[in-house]
């Protein structure tokens, strides 16, 4: 065994974008590889679960876990890595707050399975066959992970030391986090490794925001020609920037797309969606219920819009069925 600190990467319910972000460190990744001993990285290298199980407890310096926890397998891995690691970094929006997978918390498990295996157009499944946790075929026993009733953030399953926000976290933030870990300069437990100030601070469109928005309607990005200079909210687009933690250097607004909130809220906010609603809708133009409703109709999917990355960590966590 190497005397370099052992580091593990793992992915739960995620798209793989967080893995890409690690690769996006480009040549910097070589420095990381040089400094650490990677003991687990399923997307890139071949390790077995038994390798980790065989390690002494707390022998891994840091585990970077991305993705939400949706299945029993992911939960098992998360718990295993927690047991073996001194520091667990919740990596990216899905691990931090459920991310895109958590949008499934608007539906019950049965609703999801029925749709996917029966009702979805294109499904040809006359026998209505569904995957089973355990099945026996000619004497051979097959098992599959169990789908949980809801999507959870990593910290809803295991204790977590730090959070790297973003969908995915930017290479700059990843590098800063890794360097801090290697240097032993660890912030207090629970810290989100990104500035605790909203995104507008770093957005180059900030000055073009009028002080009084008084919006009369909302539009979606495909419905308008977006002015590349002007504040996106001022253009009637739902830009979550004011209610979202900065640190990404306003990449999406820079690319002419509104912020969708992947960095989550600042430490002072419990529920990003509710807080965003409180801010922007307090100042829409109409005063009467009918007029207000007409403006709100411009946002056909409020949950998907305001909790795009954070439904698991919203105050209500999932829809009641």
């Amino acid at each position, binding site marked *: 065994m190497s005397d370099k600190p052992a580091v593990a990467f793992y992915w739960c319910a995620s798209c793989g974008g967080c893995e890409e972000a690690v690769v996006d460190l480009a040549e910097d990744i070589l420095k990381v590889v040089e400094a650490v001993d990677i003991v687990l990285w399923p997307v890139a290298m071949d390790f077995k679960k038994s390798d980790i199980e065989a390690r002494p407890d707390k022998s891994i310096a840091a585990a970077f876990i991305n993705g939400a926890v949706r299945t029993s397998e992911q939960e098992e891995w998360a718990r295993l890595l927690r047991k073996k690691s001194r520091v667990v970094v919740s990596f990216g929006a899905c691990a931090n707050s459920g991310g895109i997978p958590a949008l499934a918390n608007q539906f019950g498990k049965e609703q999801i399975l029925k749709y996917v295996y029966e009702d979805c157009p294109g499904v040809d499944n006359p026998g209505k066959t569904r995957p089973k946790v355990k099945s026996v075929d000619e004497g051979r026993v097959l098992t599959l992970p169990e789908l949980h009733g809801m999507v959870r953030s990593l910290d809803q399953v295991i204790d977590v030391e730090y959070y790297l926000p973003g969908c995915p976290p930017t290479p700059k933030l990843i590098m800063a986090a890794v360097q801090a870990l290697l240097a032993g300069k660890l912030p207090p437990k629970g810290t989100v490794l990104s500035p605790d100030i909203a995104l507008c601070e770093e957005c180059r469109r900030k000055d073009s925001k009028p002080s009084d928005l008084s919006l009369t309607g909302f539009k979606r990005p495909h419905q308008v020609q977006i002015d590349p200079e002007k504040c996106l909210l001022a253009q009637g687009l739902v830009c979550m920037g004011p209610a979202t933690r900065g640190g990404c250097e306003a990449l999406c607004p820079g690319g002419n797309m509104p912020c969708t909130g992947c960095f989550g809220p600042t430490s002072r906010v419990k529920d990003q969606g509710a807080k965003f609603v409180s801010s922007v809708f*307090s100042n829409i133009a109409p005063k009467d219920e009918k007029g207000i409703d007409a403006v709100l109709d411009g946002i056909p999917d409020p949950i998907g819009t305001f909790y795009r990355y954070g439904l698991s960590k919203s105050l*209500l966590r999932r829809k009641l069925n």
Partner: protein
Amino acid sequence: MTEKFEPRIVAFFCNWCTYTAADLAGVSRLKYAPNVRVIRVMCSGRVDPQFVLDAFARGADGVLLGGCHPGDCHYAEGNYKTLRRMRMLERMLKGMGIYDGRFRLEWISGAEGDKVRAVVNEITEKVRALGPLDMPGKFKEWDKEIEELEAHINQGGPRKEKLHV
């Protein structure tokens, strides 16, 4: 559940109108249901949608928000700001499965002590008919599925086999 269900309702009342109306209801000795717990704010405009969600998440079966009538806000237009954000909050609550009057926004002026009585009684009866929301209980129930594995890992025993669906 053996104990009779008594709804727990959290109310946010603005100081100048609805809280004063509730004081007036008291001075007038009007009688109403004891299920509402009033939290005083200076203006209904101080009520952050997070407060409403937090109240539900912590076990409120209903949430009532009281402010001055439109045009009557002590702070000019705070109640309009409330109305706008709460209209959106209502849509979000519906999206999360909380509707049917568990959340209610009412304009009650300082002179309408009787309206406090009526509204409190109405929301109490409404929520009583809907039954408990009990989000803390639901959180616990939902998390049972992960407690099982935690227990298994801690004990190091064999994994309980379960058939899916």
